[in-house]
């Protein structure tokens, strides 16, 4: 994990150097004489050797100093992104929680009654969720609920009503994966001997599913839920752009379009830490869910 983080910081550092021209020239634009530019370079430490610059870059990262945005001169990147991160986290968490709340019971039900009405409905939703891109789902929902029926705003942020469409769009694909994996995991366990034993000793179907089937499927489902969260985060690139949500996804797309290198660097670092943290939490969760898993 440590080499991974270091590798990423090196990559992100190189990313900043990819910028055509150097930061000072971009900050000054056409104004500024040679002396001022030289002073600016010295101030930012750009006249030092690359290795030293990298170490200083790491130091700034450690102090959570993410630099100053090129696109909005004078504005620290940290300030630009502070609200965006929590907005995206809120959206992502909400979408995955809802996806779990709906997908889990439906997945179990379709495993219990394969070929039934719920199973067929679940398969259809799964198919749509996996094959239809976020922005097509968004287009259909906006067309239907905002433009035709007028129930929900087309885009914007700040009120509760603004949350509905982005969350639904972000939820669909995670829900599809959760339903599919739950159905598969539970139906594989339902044919095991210990389920037959449980049934033979008179345990009701509810207890069998909850205590035996779900406990054994828990790891698979947790992995999918983790994957879903990362899906919701990357789905945010499109969803937040469409619905004008001031989150990290839109900030990323804007920063890339504007070639705002400090912001891009910050966003990549943030995503890397987010995903590492997610994996760490999942690993801990495995041990909690399954007593057989032990980390030495």
């Amino acid at each position: 994990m440590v080499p991974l983080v270091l590798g990423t910081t090196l990559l992100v550092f190189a990313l900043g150097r990819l910028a055509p021209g150097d930061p000072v020239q971009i900050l000054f634009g056409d104004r500024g004489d040679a002396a001022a530019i030289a002073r600016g370079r010295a101030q930012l430490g750009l006249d030092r050797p690359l290795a030293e610059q990298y170490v200083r870059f790491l130091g700034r990262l450690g102090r959570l100093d993410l630099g100053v945005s090129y696109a909005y001169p004078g504005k620290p990147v940290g300030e630009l992104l502070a609200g965006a991160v929590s907005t995206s986290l809120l959206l992502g968490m909400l979408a995955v929680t809802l996806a779990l709340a709906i997908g889990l019971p439906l997945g179990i039900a379709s495993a219990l009654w394969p070929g039934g009405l719920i199973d067929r409905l679940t398969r259809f939703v799964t198919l749509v969720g996996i094959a239809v891109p976020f922005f097509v789902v968004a287009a259909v929902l906006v067309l239907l609920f905002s433009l035709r029926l007028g129930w929900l705003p087309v885009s914007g942020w700040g009120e509760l009503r603004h949350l509905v469409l982005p969350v639904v769009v972000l939820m669909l694909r995670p829900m599809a994966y959760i339903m599919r994996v739950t159905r598969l995991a539970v139906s594989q366990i339902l044919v095991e001997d210990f389920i037959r034993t449980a049934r033979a000793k008179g345990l009701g179907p509810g207890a069998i599913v909850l205590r035996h089937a779900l406990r054994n499927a828990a790891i698979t489902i947790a992995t999918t839920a983790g994957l879903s969260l990362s899906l919701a985060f990357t789905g945010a690139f499109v969803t937040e752009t469409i619905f004008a949500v001031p989150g990290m996804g839109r900030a990323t797309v804007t920063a890339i379009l504007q070639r705002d290198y400090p912001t891009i660097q910050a966003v990549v670092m943030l995503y890397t830490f987010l995903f590492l943290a997610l994996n760490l939490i999942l690993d801990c969760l495995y041990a909690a869910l399954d007593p057989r898993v032990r980390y030495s």
Partner: protein
Amino acid sequence: MSVARRRTHIDSRTVGGVAVLGVLIVISVLVPLVSPYSYRTQRLDEMFGGVSGQHWLGTDHLGRDLLTRVAYGGGISFLVSGTAVLVQTVVGVAVGLIAGYFGGRTDAALMRLTDVILAFPPLLLLLLVTGLLGPTLLNIVLALALSGWASMARQIRAEALTLRTRDFVAAARALGATDGVIVRRHLLANIATIAMVRASLDVGPVILSESTLSFLGIGIQPPTPSWGAMIAEGFSHLRTHPALTVIPSVALSLAVLALTFVGDGLTEALDPRQRRR
């Protein structure tokens, strides 16, 4: 192949997938050839034209024939995604075979490299590479392949690890075959099926990624049409002319759906271990 055919119980979804895919490919090849319209000629006197004898699907906000643009955009999507999958399959198979067969430090180094690639969310990697290097067709293909080869390499490596302990590899070595011959002649032949199945499953997601890039304005650049960019352009006219968004959306969703069915069908036919239950 005869074994594959015998094992296959061809279900209707696979047949439907092949049919839809075939129709879409024929349209995207044929229409640009026979259409009297170009995908880029703007006719401002024919903006937002409805369905008519001249324009079978109507015209867009710049008076361009929608059918021609949808077909041309589909062709570009298939071409870009197909090439990307080809590149990532070749790279993934080569890296996987080398890592799995030779093991040791080579393996460790190559697998750390895949770790770094897989740690990034694929869409972020795509956005960064095409966004910063410039959205040319070549860069888009390279970016798609770059974010896709690692998981292919992982799977092929796992296969190579088990294959290299098999008797026929020992036999080949006893007969004096060099490492290169064993990898190329024996391992590659045994891995080809799995690589094909993986590749067929990858095309759908890659088309999705490409259209997402184009939708965000970081992929294929106008006036060259692509389904993603056309949907994005249509968004601003969603209230008045939903067809501009709906038609490319339907084409894109049908293509991905058909590719999913074909991929699943191929998996079932060629790779009995991954049969659906």
